[in-house]
Structures are given as structure tokens and as C-alpha cells.
């Protein structure tokens, strides 16, 4: 049978172009028996329905993946979220992870840092260095990336409300290493809307928060073009208990809000849209999760093209990071968590993820130990090098179930996105609690199914055992808070305090007007103004957001 002209066209254009730039990992992919594994399996008859809804990888609507060769070309980035205690301690963990073959860093900040408090703030008591690393000033950031070349490593930073400050510090560290801002690679989460909905590290009300985000889009477009300016996150929405379709809906609705805000501020769509990245959860329902990733990719491409009129291909592509679902980890029989994580990671890989974090087995008890983090990373390496699922693109495509489920998730998510729009948009639906209620109801229903035994969680409500052995726990030493405060005091004693005060005043004046705040923040951090000082200036001008409860 003759090759379908559209397939031939794809091979000659997208595929050939991609192969000429990035050859595949192997000249020939074969199975154990020596048979060649096809790059892409397609239906015998390629029809309009196939072309409209699936198409070819690296081609609209991107259902089968954003790159023409997907994981045959390059494996996903194995990126383990880590950070705890002090900058020096976290720096050691990062260098360990890089030694073990991780290919990108992902920084976890402690809660005071995420909410814009210095370690010596009254609000920081008990939280310093607990769930991530404490960063008060550029001095800590210099320690955090000591001997890690920022032109070689890409870094993802889970930071939202004060993202502008941490980004400025990161760029400043790069400059000190001799790395130009344009060569800096990585991602800041910078997704405030899901903080109001599900994660909780907001500082300012929505409007000034959205301004800061737009400021970052614009500044990065001019200064750090290789940096992803936002990671629009469904992960935490799902962790809070949403369904798969709600995860897609609320995430993409947030995405549309950022796009619209940036357009309203006069930014050019095809300039900033290419730097938008996404972040999803991989839960245990393998097939539903694979369908979810495919549906999200297709729906975003359609929204960007049809609703916003994006022209550039890169603007249409939903590129995403995945983390396995923390909420599915059990405190009981923790070795079972390795199996859960494997299934979830497999879903992410089959769903075409660009990067992946695998959770460690002990995280229902505490931050992971070095040993359990290694096992989590090895899980990815086994999938990448032994499972074979990376050798052919979008291998579950064409399954009756997967395709119908992909369609259903897309349909359900779109209906919810439209409903939010009709109800006045995302910000209004957050302020009146509509989105939070949807998630709470889904979470409650799910948990009650477990309580009633209708949903089995192995080792929790069935197959329980009496456990004698307690897992070794990673503990953050209580002295961390004290020594972090001492370091902060030292920084404040050794900087030019007059200069800092005057830069903070300039920032305050700028915040009252309409200027892009990034250059002002950048000037502040270079003089070692602290995160808390900068955020307090902005609190004064912008006010603070309070949760409804």
C-alpha cells in the first residue's frame, strides 16, 4: 500500500529536519530478537479523523508528542526535586545527584523562602530549612550553586510569589560565574493562580501577582531567552484531590489567564508563549494518566491556535514536567511505594513527558534519605534503558480505550474551562471558591471510597501487616534555624546598607507605578538586599492575600 501523502510529508519535513539536527539515540532500535522497532506505528488507513485528532509527533495538534522523534531522539530530563536545611547541605545533595546521573536540578525552597520571609522573621519559626533550602540573600544562592556550572546545568526552581527575586539571584550567580544571562537555562514555577487554589504559598492579591508574572515574561524575553518563565502546574491541584480531567481543566484555564494577562499588557504572543511550560501529576491509574497527558497536549494546542491565534509552532506545544503523585505514597509498608512510583513514572513516559521527578519510598514519613532518592532515580533509569517503551513513539495510540479516554478527558476539561470563563474567569472563580470547592468535593469522595473499603489501597485498608521495623528518617537539625539567622545577620553587617535602603526605596516607587519591576529587583539582590526586605516593600505597596478558610 502506498504511503499516505501526509505521512510522507511529515517524514520529509518535520522528521527529516529534526533528524538532521539531533540524530536519534541509536542508528537502529531493535528488540531482543533483533527485529527492528518502528519509530512510529500508524493505522493501516490514515483518514481525516486520524489527521485531525492525532496527526504525527511534532505536528499539530501534538497528541502524539511535541517532538518528531520523542524519546528516540532524547530521553526526558531526569530531574529530582531536592533541597533541605542550609544552602551548603543542599549543594552537597545536588552534586551527589549530578554524580549519580541526574540531568537537571530542581530546587526545593523552604516555606519561609517561598512566602517571602527571611529566616529571622517571626513567621518563620519552626519552618526554616524544613521542606527545602532556606535562601535569604544572594550569599545563600552563591553557596547553593557553588561548583555547579550554570551554563551546563538547567535548574528548575519551585518558587512562585517571590519568583522574580529568586530568578534575579540565579541570574546574578550566573554572572558571577561568568555565564551570560542568555545562556541560563531552567524554569521558575511562577504560577500564582494554583497557589490560591491548591498550594498556599501566595503573598500578594491576584492582580499585582499577575503583574509580576507579566514583568518576568517580558524581562526574560529580552534577557534570558532560553529560560522557561513559568511552569503552569496541575500537580498540586491533583495532589489537593482533583480528578484527572479537573487537573487538565484548571491548569489550562490558568494558562489561558496568564496568556490573556500578558496580551493585555501588550506582550507579543509568539514571543512569550514559547517559554510557557507545564507541570503535571502522574497518579496510579496508568491508562487514565496516559490519556490525560495526550488530552492536555491536544487541548492546549487547540486553545492556543483557535482562541488566541498563535502562529508559531512553539507557541502551540505543551511541554511538561511530571512528578509522581505524592499523595499516593503510603506510610505503611513503604517498599510498596517503589512499585507505585514505577507505574506512575511509566505513565509519564508513555504520555510523552519532557522531564520527570520520581518520589522516594519514604516520603510519607519525612524528606527522603539519600539511599531512597537513589532508588527513585534508578526507577527512571530502568524505564529509560531496560523497559523498551522509549523506542517507539506514543505506543498506546490507537488503543480503543486510550483514544476514547483521551477524547473524554479533553471534552470534560474543555467544558469546565468554558464554565469558568462563563462564570467570570479564573480569578473570580478562585475568589468565590468555585474551583476550590470542586477539588474539595472530589477529594472527599475519593477518601470516603477508601474509608468504606470500596477503593483498596494496598497495605492501608487491605493486606495490612504489623510492622516492626521503622524506616530511617532524614531529620533537619534544629540548629539550622539558628545558623541561618547568624548567616543572615553577617550578610546585613557586611553589605552597603545605605545603598540597599536607597535601592529598596526605588523599588517601592516603581511598584507604585507601572514599570517592569525585574530590573529594580535585580539591582536590589546584587547589593544583597534580602528576600524578606524586597517582599516587604512589595507587601507594603500591593497588600496581602488572605485565604477564605
Amino acid at each position, binding site marked *: 500500500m502506498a504511503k499516505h501523502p501526509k505521512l510522507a510529508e511529515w517524514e520529509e519535513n518535520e522528521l527529516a529536519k529534526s533528524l538532521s539536527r539531533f540524530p536519534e539515540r541509536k542508528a537502529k532500535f531493535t528488540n531482543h530478537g533483533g527485529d527492528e522497532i518502528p519509530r512510529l506505528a500508524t493505522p493501516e488507513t490514515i483518514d481525516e479523523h486520524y489527521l485531525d485528532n492525532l496527526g504525527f509527533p511534532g505536528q499539530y495538534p501534538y497528541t502524539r508528542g511535541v517532538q518528531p522523534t520523542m524519546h528516540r531522539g532524547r530521553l526526558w530530563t531526569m530531574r529530582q526535586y531536592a533541597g533541605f536545611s542550609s544552602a551548603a547541605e543542599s549543594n552537597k545533595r545536588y552534586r551527589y545527584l549530578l554524580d549519580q546521573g541526574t540531568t537537571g536540578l530542581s530546587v526545593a525552597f523552604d516555606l519561609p523562602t517561598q512566602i517571602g520571609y527571611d529566616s529571622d522573621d517571626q*513567621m518563620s519559626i519552626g519552618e526554616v530549612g524544613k521542606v527545602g533550602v532556606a535562601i535569604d540573600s544572594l550569599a545563600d544562592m552563591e553557596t547553593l550553586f557553588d561548583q555547579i556550572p550554570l551554563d551546563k546545568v538547567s535548574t528548575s526552581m519551585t518558587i512562585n510569589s517571590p519568583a522574580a527575586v529568586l530568578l534575579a539571584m540565579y541570574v546574578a550567580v550566573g554572572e558571577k560565574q561568568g555565564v551570560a544571562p542568555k545562556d541560563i537555562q531552567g524554569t521558575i514555577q511562577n504560577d500564582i493562580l494554583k497557589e490560591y487554589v491548591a498550594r498556599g504559598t501566595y503573598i500578594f492579591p491576584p492582580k499585582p501577582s499577575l503583574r509580576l508574572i507579566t514583568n518576568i515574561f517580558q524581562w526574560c524575553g529580552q534577557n534570558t531567552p532560553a529560560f522557561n518563565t513559568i511552569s503552569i502546574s496541575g500537580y498540586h491541584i491533583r*495532589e489537593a484531590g482533583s480528578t484527572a480531567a479537573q487537573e487538565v481543566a484548571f491548569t489550562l484555564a490558568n494558562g489561558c489567564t496568564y496568556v490573556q494577562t500578558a496580551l493585555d499588557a501588550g506582550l507579543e504572543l509568539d514571543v512569550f508563549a514559547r517559554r510557557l511550560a507545564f507541570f503535571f501529576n502522574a497518579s496510579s491509574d496508568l491508562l487514565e494518566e496516559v490519556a490525560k497527558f495526550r488530552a492536555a497536549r491536544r487541548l492546549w494546542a487547540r486553545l492556543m491556535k483557535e482562541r488566541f491565534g498563535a502562529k508559531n509552532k512553539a507557541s502551540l506545544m505543551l511541554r511538561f514536567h511530571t512528578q509522581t503523585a505524592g499523595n499516593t505514597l503510603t*506510610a*505503611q509498608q513503604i517498599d510498596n511505594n517503589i512499585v507505585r512510583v514505577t507505574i506512575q513514572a511509566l505513565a509519564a513516559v508513555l504520555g510523552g513527558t519532557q522531564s520527570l521527578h520520581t518520589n522516594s519510598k519514604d516520603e510519607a*514519613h519525612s524528606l527522603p534519605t539519600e539511599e531512597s532518592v537513589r532508588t527513585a532515580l534508578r526507577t527512571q533509569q530502568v524505564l529509560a534503558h531496560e523497559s523498551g517503551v522509549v523506542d517507539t513513539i506514543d505506543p498506546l495510540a490507537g488503543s480503543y480505550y486510550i483514544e476514547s479516554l483521551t477524547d473524554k478527558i479533553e471534552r470534560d476539561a474543555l467544558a469546565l474551562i468554558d464554565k469558568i470563563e462563563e462564570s467570570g474567569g479564573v480569578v473570580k472563580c478562585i475568589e468565590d471558591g468555585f474551583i476550590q470547592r470542586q477539588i474539595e468535593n472530589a477529594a*472527599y469522595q475519593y477518601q470516603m471510597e477508601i474509608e468504606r473499603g470500596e477503593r483498596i489501597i494496598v497495605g492501608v485498608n487491605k493486606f495490612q501487616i504489623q510492622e516492626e521495623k*521503622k524506616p530511617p528518617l532524614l531529620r533537619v537539625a534544629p540548629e539550622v534555624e539558628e545558623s541561618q539567622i547568624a548567616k543572615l545577620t553577617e550578610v546585613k553587617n557586611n553589605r552597603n546598607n545605605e545603598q540597599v535602603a536607597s535601592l529598596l526605596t526605588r523599588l517601592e516607587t516603581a511598584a507604585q507605578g507601572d514599570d517592569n519591576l525585574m530590573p529594580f529587583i535585580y539591582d536590589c539582590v546584587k547589593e544583597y538586599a534580602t528576600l524578606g526586605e524586597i517582599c516587604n516593600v512589595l507587601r507594603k505597596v500591593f497588600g496581602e492575600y488572605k*485565604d477564605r*478558610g
Partner: protein
Amino acid sequence: MTEKIKKNRVLVGKPGLDGHDRGAKFIAQALRDAGFEVVYTGIRRSPEEIAAAAVQEDVDAVGLSSLSGAHMRLFPAVVEALAKAGAPDIPVLGGGVIPEEDIIELKAAGIVEIFTPGTPIDTIISAYRDACEKKSTG
């Protein structure tokens, strides 16, 4: 004769900076379904704010949730804040990602009960019922 039975009142609070409130919200809703009156503070409240709310709402028990590892500082701080606010008799219960060895210390600091992941909801509800009733007869 229609004597109205007073419902047990509980304040569910999230002390500190931790934003994970899926568990807190679930407990709040499950207690409501079991006939309690429940006030949820919302996230990111200081121990003093939680104590003040408990007094103002005239609750029979306070439930705390923390998943960030700050429980050793924050849970006892709420017990102290309640005493300072003139309500040392309001029992405090807690839950979250809490290692076993911490539970002994927390109980010594006056926390009545600590629940860890996987505890059946019925166990939690009856602990709240006991705590509330002990307080009102206490």
C-alpha cells in the same frame, strides 16, 4: 419535651506556613457529616490566631494539621496560646506527617491525640467525640 442537644464544636486549624490542607479539609467535612459543628481556620495561621479563634468560637476541641515538619514547634505553641488566652481546658488533637518518636513528646506537651496517615476516619471521629465530651463534662 424538646431539649436541644448541644452539638460538639471543633476548630480545625492549620498552624505555620504549610499549605497542604487536603487532610484538614477532609477531617473537617467528615466531622460535619458525623454531626459536629466545625470551623476551619484556613491555612497559614499563627498559634495565637488559632487560640483566639477557638475562644471566640467557643469550641470543645481544636484539631491541628501540619505536613511540613514544623509540628514540634507549632503544636505545643497552640497549647500554650490557648492557656494564655484563658482556655487551657480546650483539648488539642493533631495529625499529619509525624514520626512516631515525636508523638510521645507531643503528648507530653499536652496534645491529646496524634493521628498519622492511614488512620481510619472512625477512629478519628470517636477520638474527637471523647475529647469534646470530656471537655464539656470536665
